[in-house]
C-alpha cells in the first residue's frame, strides 16, 4: 500500500527570547526546537522521545501553533500551515488535535465532560444540534466511559478517566492526526497500560495517525512505527522501530535503550549511565550538543557541529558516522 | 535607581496629562453653552467678548485644547468667577493647608495601621482579628461629615478642648501661632485618621496573610528563630513593600475625605474651596483645584514608588 505523506516538517525552529536590552531587542534565545525536520505518513505512529527540556513538547505545540514557530515550515497535506491565521487556521485545527499531559489541568473544572466534548463540535458546526449530543455519547463509549458520565464534572473522575475524556474530546472533531504530548506520563503504570491499549485500538478502528511524545522509551517502543530521538531541540536519530532497537547508532539512543528495564536477568545488558545533567537550552555546548555527556566522545565533537546523515532511512547526527560520508 | 525614577516620571507625566485632558473634556463637551463654564455670565458683554478671545472659545476644539495646555504649562489656571483673581494665586495660599492635613494623616495612619494589620494577620481567625476587622470596616463606613461634626460637637462644645473649626485664630504670630494651628489641626486629622486607618490595616493584613503562608516563613521558624523576629524581619518587611505601593494610591483616595472634612471644619484648604466653588458655580476654580490636587497625588505616588524601589532589593535590579 502506498504511503501517503500527510505532514511535512521542514527545518522547524522555535526559539524563546530570554533577555531584552534596553531598546527591546532580544539578545539571547532559548533554542527549544532547533532545525527539526521529519515526515509523517498516514496511519503510522511516530514516537518522539527525549528528556525533560529536550524540546519534544515544544515540537507538538509548534505544530499546533499553540506556540509560534520562529522559523521553518509545516505542511499539512501540502498546505503550508506555518503562518496561517484566523478562520483558516481554525478550520485546519479540526485535523490535528492534541491530548495533554496533565489530566487534572487540561479539563475546564466548570463544565461537564459531556459539554466539553460537544463544545468543539458546536463551534465548528460539524453536526446538527441533536447529533452532537449523540456523537458525544458514542465517543464516551468508544473511550471506555459510561454514557451516564456525560453530565458529571471533571473533579468526579480519576486521572485515567479524565485522560479518556481528553481523548474523547480530541476525537470530537474527527481529526486525522493526534499528538499525544506525554499523555500517559502522569498516570499510574497500570493505568498507563490501559490508555496505551486504548490508543492502539482507536488507531486501528479509526485509521488515526499519531505523534506520540514521551520521555519513556519503553512506552514509545510499544506504540510507535518510527521513532525520533531528540536532545536539546535537535534530532539525534530517526529510524523505524526495528532498526532503532536492533541497531541503535547514536550513543544517546544506546544509553536510553540500556535504561529500559528488562525482566529476564539473563537478557540484561550493561546499563550505560550518562555523566552530568542535560545542559540549559539557553547555553548549549559548542559542537555537538551531546558532547558533554557522551561516553564515546572524541575531540572533534567539541568543535564541529555534526550534520544529520542518512543511511537508508536511518538518520543519525553523530561524528562517529560522519567519516563514512566522504 | 535612576531608571526607576525615569520610569516613574514618565508614568506620572502621562497620568497628569490624562487628568488634565479629562477635565478639559468634561468642561468643554457638556451640553449647552460652554462659555458659561469659563466666563462668568454676570460680566459685561465687552468683557465677555474679550475673555472669549483670550480663552480661544471662538476657535475649534483642537485649537482650544492646545491653548489650554499651553496656558497650563505657564501656570495659568484661569480666573476665578467669584474672587476675580487668578486661580493659581488662590490655590497657592490654600494648598499647603490641605497638604499638611493629608500628610500628617498619612504618617499617622501608616504608623498605626501597619502594625495593627500585621498583628491581625498573625492572629488570623481569632477574636482579636475579627474585632480589628470589624472595627476597621466600621471606621471606613462612617459618613465622614457626620463623624467630623460629631467630633466637633464632642470636643468643641461639650468638652471645649478644641476650637470649633477654622484653621487658625487671626492675629497670632510666632510660637502662639503654631500652637494655635496645631489645636485647630487635631480634630480634622483625627477624623481623617479614623476613616482611613482601615485601609492600611486591612491591606497590610491581607499582604501579611499571603506572606505568612510562604515557605520561607516556615523555614525561619523551623530554624528556631524567635517568633517576633520571624514576623517582623521576614514577614512584615515584605508585606510592607506592597503596602507602600498602595500608600500612593490611598493618598489619592484621601483627597475625597479631605474635601468633606475641610467642608465640615471650615478648614482653609483646597477641599473647602471646592465646596464653596461648587455652590457658586465657579468652574475655573474647580478645575484648577482638581489639577493641583491631581499633581500633588501624582508626586506622592512617585515618592512612594521610589521608596518602594529602595526597600525592594529585587526591584532595584530591574
Amino acid at each position, binding site marked *: 500500500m502506498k504511503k501517503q505523506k500527510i505532514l511535512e516538517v521542514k527545518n522547524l525552529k522555535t526559539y524563546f527570547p530570554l533577555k531584552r536590552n534596553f531598546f527591546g531587542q532580544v539578545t539571547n534565545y532559548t533554542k527549544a526546537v532547533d532545525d527539526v525536520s521529519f515526515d509523517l505518513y498516514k496511519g503510522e505512529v511516530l514516537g518522539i522521545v527525549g528528556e525533560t527540556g529536550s524540546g519534544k513538547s515544544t515540537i507538538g505545540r509548534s505544530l499546533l501553533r499553540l506556540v509560534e514557530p520562529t522559523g521553518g515550515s509545516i505542511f499539512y497535506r501540502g498546505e503550508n500551515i506555518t503562518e496561517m491565521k484566523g478562520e483558516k487556521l*481554525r478550520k485546519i485545527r479540526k485535523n490535528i488535535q492534541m491530548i495533554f499531559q496533565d489530566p487534572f489541568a487540561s479539563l475546564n473544572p466548570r463544565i461537564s465532560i459531556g459539554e466539553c466534548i460537544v463544545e468543539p463540535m458546536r463551534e465548528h458546526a460539524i453536526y446538527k444540534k441533536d447529533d452532537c449530543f449523540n456523537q458525544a455519547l458514542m465517543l464516551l463509549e468508544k473511550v471506555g466511559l459510561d454514557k451516564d458520565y456525560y453530565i458529571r464534572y471533571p473533579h468526579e473522575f480519576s486521572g485515567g478517566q479524565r485522560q479518556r475524556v481528553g481523548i474523547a474530546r480530541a476525537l470530537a472533531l474527527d481529526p486525522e492526526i493526534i499528538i499525544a504530548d506525554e499523555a500517559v506520563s502522569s498516570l499510574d503504570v497500570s493505568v498507563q497500560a490501559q490508555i496505551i491499549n486504548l490508543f492502539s485500538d482507536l488507531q486501528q478502528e479509526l485509521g488515526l495517525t499519531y505523534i506520540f511524545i514521551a520521555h519513556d522509551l519503553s512506552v514509545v517502543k510499544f506504540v510507535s512505527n518510527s521513532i525520533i530521538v531528540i536532545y536539546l531541540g535537535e534530532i539525534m536519530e530517526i529510524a523505524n522501530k526495528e532498526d532503532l532497537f536492533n541497531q541503535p547508532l547514536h550513543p544517546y539512543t544506546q544509553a536510553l535503550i540500556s535504561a529500559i528495564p528488562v525482566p529476564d536477568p539473563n537478557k540484561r545488558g550493561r546499563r550505560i549511565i550518562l555523566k552530568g545533567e542535560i545542559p540549559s537550552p539557553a547555553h548549549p555546548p559548542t559542537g555537538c550538543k551531546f558532547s558533554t555527556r557522551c561516553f564515546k566522545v572524541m575531540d572533534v565533537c567539541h568543535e564541529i557541529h555534526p550534520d544529520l546523515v542518512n543511511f537508508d532511512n536511518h538518520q543519525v547526527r553523530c561524528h562517529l558516522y560522519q567519516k563514512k560520508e566522504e | 535607581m535612576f531608571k526607576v525614577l525615569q520610569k516613574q516620571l514618565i508614568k506620572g507625566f502621562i497620568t497628569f496629562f490624562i487628568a488634565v485632558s479629562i477635565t478639559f473634556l468634561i468642561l468643554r463637551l457638556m451640553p449647552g453653552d460652554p462659555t458659561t463654564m469659563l466666563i462668568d455670565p454676570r460680566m459685561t458683554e465687552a468683557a465677555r467678548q474679550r475673555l472669549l478671545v483670550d480663552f480661544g472659545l471662538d476657535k475649534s476644539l483642537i485649537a482650544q485644547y492646545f491653548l489650554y495646555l499651553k496656558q497650563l504649562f505657564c501656570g495659568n489656571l484661569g480666573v476665578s468667577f467669584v474672587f476675580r483673581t487668578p486661580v493659581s494665586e488662590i490655590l497657592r495660599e490654600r494648598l499647603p493647608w490641605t497638604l499638611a492635613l493629608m500628610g500628617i494623616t498619612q504618617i499617622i495612619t501608616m504608623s498605626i495601621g501597619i502594625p495593627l494589620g500585621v498583628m491581625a494577620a498573625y492572629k488570623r481567625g481569632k477574636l482579636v482579628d475579627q474585632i480589628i476587622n470589624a472595627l476597621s470596616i466600621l471606621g471606613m463606613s462612617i459618613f465622614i461629615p457626620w463623624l467630623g461634626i460629631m467630633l466637633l460637637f464632642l470636643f468643641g462644645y461639650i468638652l471645649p478642648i478644641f476650637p470649633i473649626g477654622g484653621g487658625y485664630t487671626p492675629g497670632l504670630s510666632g510660637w502662639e501661632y503654631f500652637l494655635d494651628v496645631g489645636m485647630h489641626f487635631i480634630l480634622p486629622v483625627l477624623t481623617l485618621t479614623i476613616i482611613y486607618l482601615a485601609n492600611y490595616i486591612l491591606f497590610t493584613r491581607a499582604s501579611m496573610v499571603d506572606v505568612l503562608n510562604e515557605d520561607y516563613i516556615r523555614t525561619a521558624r523551623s530554624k528556631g528563630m524567635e517568633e517576633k523576629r520571624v514576623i517582623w524581619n521576614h514577614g512584615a518587611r515584605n508585606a510592607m513593600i506592597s503596602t507602600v505601593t498602595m500608600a500612593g494610591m490611598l493618598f489619592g483616595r484621601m483627597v475625597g475625605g479631605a474635601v468633606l472634612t475641610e467642608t465640615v471644619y471650615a478648614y482653609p484648604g483646597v477641599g473647602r474651596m471646592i465646596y464653596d466653588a461648587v455652590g457658586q458655580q465657579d468652574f475655573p476654580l474647580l478645575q484648577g483645584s482638581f489639577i493641583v490636587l491631581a499633581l500633588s497625588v501624582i508626586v506622592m505616588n512617585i515618592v512612594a514608588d521610589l521608596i518602594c524601589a529602595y526597600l525592594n532589593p529585587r526591584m532595584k535590579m530591574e
Partner: protein
Amino acid sequence: MNKFRSYQQGKWLRIGKSFFEHRLGVIGLIGVIVVFLVAIFAPYIAESVSGYGEVKDILNSPSLEHIFGTDALGLDLFSQVIWGTRISLQVGFLVVLIAALIGIPIGLFSGYYGGWVSTLGMGLTNVFLTLPLLPLMIIAAAVLGSNINNIALIIGLFSWPQIARITRSAAAEVTGMQYIEAAKSLGIRANRIIFHHVLVNASAPILVNLTIVVATAIISESALSFLGLGDPLTWSWGKILHNAHRSGAFISSWWFSLFPSLAITFFVVSFNFLGMGMREALNPRLRE
C-alpha cells in the same frame, strides 16, 4: 440536555459551609437581606413624604408619632430614611452595572491577550486609580446636572478601574491553565474562550469586588449629595444630611443627622462584610 443537568455536589457545599463559618460574612449577608427587604416593603413600613410639612412639626425630636423625628420642613424622617433605601439600592445597582460592563471586558482582554493590550488597559486603569476621584466626580456632577441616574452614571464611570484590575489578574491566572490551551487547540473562537471559559473560572474574585463596589458607590453618592450635587427631587440619605447641614440644626437637632448616617453606615458595613465573607470562603488557599 438540560434535563440531564445533575446537582453538582461537593464544591458548592464546601464553599457555603466555609462562608457561614465566618461571622462577619454572615452578619453582612443578614444586613444586605434587611436592606433589600426594607426597600421592597417600603410602602408597607412608612408612607412616602414630600412637599412641605406643617410648621408645628418642624424639627421635632423623636416621638411615638415620628420615630426618627422630623426635619427642617416638618417631614417625617423615618419615612425618608426608609424610602432612601430604595435610592441607595438603585444607585448601587446602576453603578455596579456600569462598572461591570466597562471593567470586566477590559480586564478580560488585558488578562487573556497580555502584551500591549494589557499595557494599555492596565495603564488606563492605573491612571484612574491614582487620581483623586471625588473632585473629578464633583466637576462632572456640576457640569452634567444632578439627576440621580446621572450621578450613578458618573460614579460608575469612575468605579470601573477597580473591577478591571481584579478581573485582569484573575483572567491572567486562568489563561495560564492548560484547559484554556486545550480550548485554543480545539479551534474554539477567542471570544467564546474569553467570555465563557475564562470569565466563568475567574468569576469568584470579580463577584467579591462587585459587592464592595456597591458599598463605595453609596459612600460616593452620599458625599456628592451632601456637598449639594445630589438630585433635588430624590432624597437619598446623603441629601437628607445635606438638608440637615444647610438648616444649621445639624447638632442641635441630632436626630436629623444621626439616623441617615446610621443608615449609610449600616448599608456600607453590610455590603463590605458580605464581600469579606465571600472572599474568605472563595479563596481555596485559605480554606485549608
